[in-house]
């Protein structure tokens, strides 16, 4: 018997067929470990069950590459500008070691900084406070290297809704200590217009809690922009990732402590997401 689409559906599509369709037509949601690097060393090493601590960002990148990470994010938190060349060397060594995309953020102030990181082999650069101070850096980066290279990192705190902050979410810098008087939703839209290819959305309220991502904020931004949104801050369990990818509509989820301290593996996270109907990359 043949069923034509014009005649309308004669019976409910079986679940298995729906899943097959979803698997065929959807991009995978990306699971992205985040490594903080200071003067060439990761600030949180991977603690395995036998308590071996890897503090080398290149070795950690290799570990997560082998473990099924879809992408890796490095944040350079080196305070002194003179020591920033150390990070370029790290990027160069990472690029020889892993063959998935990775991005580098932290301390990128201008197009020359971007160029140095991209030439060293990173796929993307992430700008955060430098873009708040000078939004032109986003358009300059997009023009020089392409939008796909430019990630707008946003640190956000919930505040009361006001005329100035209509969404109730405000842009902050300096780890949340300085309020910038900029509405997070407006900033996301502006970043997209200036040429950002992606947004990494970090909730300062959720960051470090391991109590789950800020779902309202993530859904608000994800549904308002056309570029992919990476949710960041608050991941503690695979369920948290499911909520932010499903309800939060995020395209990707950043994870840190929950994998660095050996509580979960990327395979465990992905198996859970897969069982909940979220499409993830299953072989690598």
């Amino acid at each position, binding site marked *: 018997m043949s069923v034509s689409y014009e005649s309308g559906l004669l019976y409910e599509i079986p679940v298995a067929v729906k899943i097959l369709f979803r698997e*065929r*037509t959807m991009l995978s949601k*990306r699971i992205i470990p985040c490594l903080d690097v200071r003067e060439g060393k990761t600030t949180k090493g991977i603690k395995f069950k036998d308590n071996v601590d890897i503090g080398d960002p290149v070795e950690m990148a290799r570990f997560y590459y082998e473990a099924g990470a*879809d992408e890796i994010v490095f944040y350079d938190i080196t305070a002194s500008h003179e020591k920033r060349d150390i990070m370029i060397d790290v990027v160069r060594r990472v690029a020889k070691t892993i*063959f998935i*995309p990775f991005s580098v953020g932290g301390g990128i102030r201008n197009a020359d900084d971007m160029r140095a990181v991209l*030439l060293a082999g990173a796929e993307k650069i992430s700008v955060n406070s430098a873009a708040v101070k000078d939004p032109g850096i986003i358009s300059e980066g997009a023009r020089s290297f392409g939008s*796909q290279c430019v990630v707008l990192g946003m640190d956000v705190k919930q505040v009361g809704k006001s005329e100035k902050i209509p969404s109730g979410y405000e842009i902050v810098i300096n780890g949340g200590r300085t309020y910038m008087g900029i509405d997070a939703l407006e900033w996301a839209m502006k970043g997209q217009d200036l040429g950002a290819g992606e947004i990494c959305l970090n909730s300062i309220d959720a960051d470090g809690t391991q109590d789950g991502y800020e779902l309202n904020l993530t859904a608000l931004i994800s549904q308002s922009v056309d570029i992919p949104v990476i949710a960041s801050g608050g991941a503690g369990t695979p369920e948290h990732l499911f909520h932010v990818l499903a309800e939060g509509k995020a*395209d990707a989820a950043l994870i840190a402590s929950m994998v660095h301290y050996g509580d979960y593996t990327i395979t465990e996270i992905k198996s859970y997401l897969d069982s909940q109907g979220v499409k993830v990359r299953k072989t*690598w």
Partner: protein
Amino acid sequence: MIAIIDYDAGNLTSVARALSHIGFQCVVTNNIKEIERAERIVFPGVGAAGSAMDSLKRLSLDFAIKKAFADGKPVLGICLGTQIIMGHSQENDTSCLGIINGEVRAFPSEMKAEDGSSLKIPHMGWNRISIRNNHPVLSGVRETDEFYFVHGFYPAPADAAHVIAETDYGISFASVVGFKNIIATQFHLEKSGKPGLALLKNFCEWEPF
């Protein structure tokens, strides 16, 4: 020696690093003589079709690539390189190399996912491929293997025989195209983990004739 064509189009060193990693010697070059001496050609690229064709013409690399193909050398296109080997691109209304007949098209602007949400453009991230015509370079690909894409345009070969694999993103498009001694992927096999490196190795060992 494998020559990676250098025409000021994006991060070419990533392909060079991937080739070194799997044990093949390569050179990133825009030197015509060096390209003529090479046994295999990789033609990568990130950026827009218009400026890419301008650079290729300015450096006479358009002829060098066509000649390498005519000489029967294995040629690998990647991302923008894959689009440039087609006949014409809608991006900047650009006449391309025409090694494979067909057009490069923009994704439709209002594509919907099954759940009704809008699909974002560019198509960026990991996605699967379905093989339409068996090819030695795709041998060993598992159904669940995924590859890393970043693109807003896709190749549409005129002849279905040149569609080696397809990927679904709102529409079904040719994610791998091939003809005689050229094979070209819309995804970045140099950034697609081990499945990508396996295809790169297949290419390096491929004897088309």
